């Protein structure tokens, strides 16, 4: 099975499931319509979902994905309380700046998830990605240091290991 066909299969299955959820299956008409709609979506936009092979066992990847999700949610809670503290503080204790970190991830989707996580976690916001995909520029609301290696460890390090397990 080629990569594109696998991607199409996934899109078909996902579309069908989402359709069933959206319509809260009442009768056969909805199911048949769901099959047709899923086929249509697959024809138009089927080949984009998966673009690279993943190694590693599927169960282990799902397990580490769940672990990643829990860690991410925890970090996000912390981020929100942090921002709430800053916002209601009368003197706005901020020390902003744009810093640079390095990443070892190579897959597109892994980098995307990493940058999105960085945006949603305490004090950091992805500004740009270097074209060689190994450096991320980050706006940090509370700059602790300007050293690249140290920042890599504090900002990206907590997600990178788990993401390597999930995506590569």
């Amino acid at each position, binding site marked *: 099975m080629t990569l594109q066909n696998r991607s199409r299969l996934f899109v078909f299955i996902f579309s069908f499931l989402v359709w069933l959820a959206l319509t*809260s299956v009442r009768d056969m008409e909805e199911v048949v319509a769901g099959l047709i709609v899923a086929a249509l979506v697959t024809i138009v936009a089927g080949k984009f979902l998966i673009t690279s092979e993943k190694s590693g066992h599927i169960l282990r990847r799902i397990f580490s994905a769940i672990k990643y999700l829990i860690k991410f949610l925890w970090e*996000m809670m912390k*981020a929100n309380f942090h921002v709430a503290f800053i916002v*209601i503080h009368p003197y706005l204790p901020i020390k902003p700046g*744009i810093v640079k970190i390095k990443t070892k991830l190579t897959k597109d989707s892994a980098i995307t998830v990493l*940058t999105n996580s960085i945006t949603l976690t305490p004090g950091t916001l992805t500004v740009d990605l270097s074209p060689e995909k190994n450096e991320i520029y980050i706006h940090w609301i509370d700059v602790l240091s300007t050293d690249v290696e140290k920042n890599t460890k504090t900002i990206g390090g907590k997600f990178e290991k788990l993401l390597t397990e999930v995506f590569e």
Partner: protein
Amino acid sequence: MTREVIGMAFILVGIMFDFFGVLGLVRLPDVYNRLQAATKCVTFGSAGILLGVFIIQGFNNFGFKALLGIVFIFLTSPVAAHAIARAAHRSGIPLTKETVVDQYQEDNELKD
């Protein structure tokens, strides 16, 4: 009944964080800091509201639409924030006076 109480609690928390995010949007000094506060808190807040709605409604189509909304917001809102921040920096909107360091600017100047 307990389901509704839990759902209402989520909705309340969500609205609270919405409010903090918007407050940050108004109070913080420059566009990047505003993006920081607003994106995080409003995303979390709206996701909380949607989760509360999902808990109250259960597994019918309303609940699933709420779940779809959560997935969609988590996918898109950081990306929009990233795009806006990049565009703002490239179009030369300055950072606030309190800024400590700007390594992005340094690298761009080196490359040009």
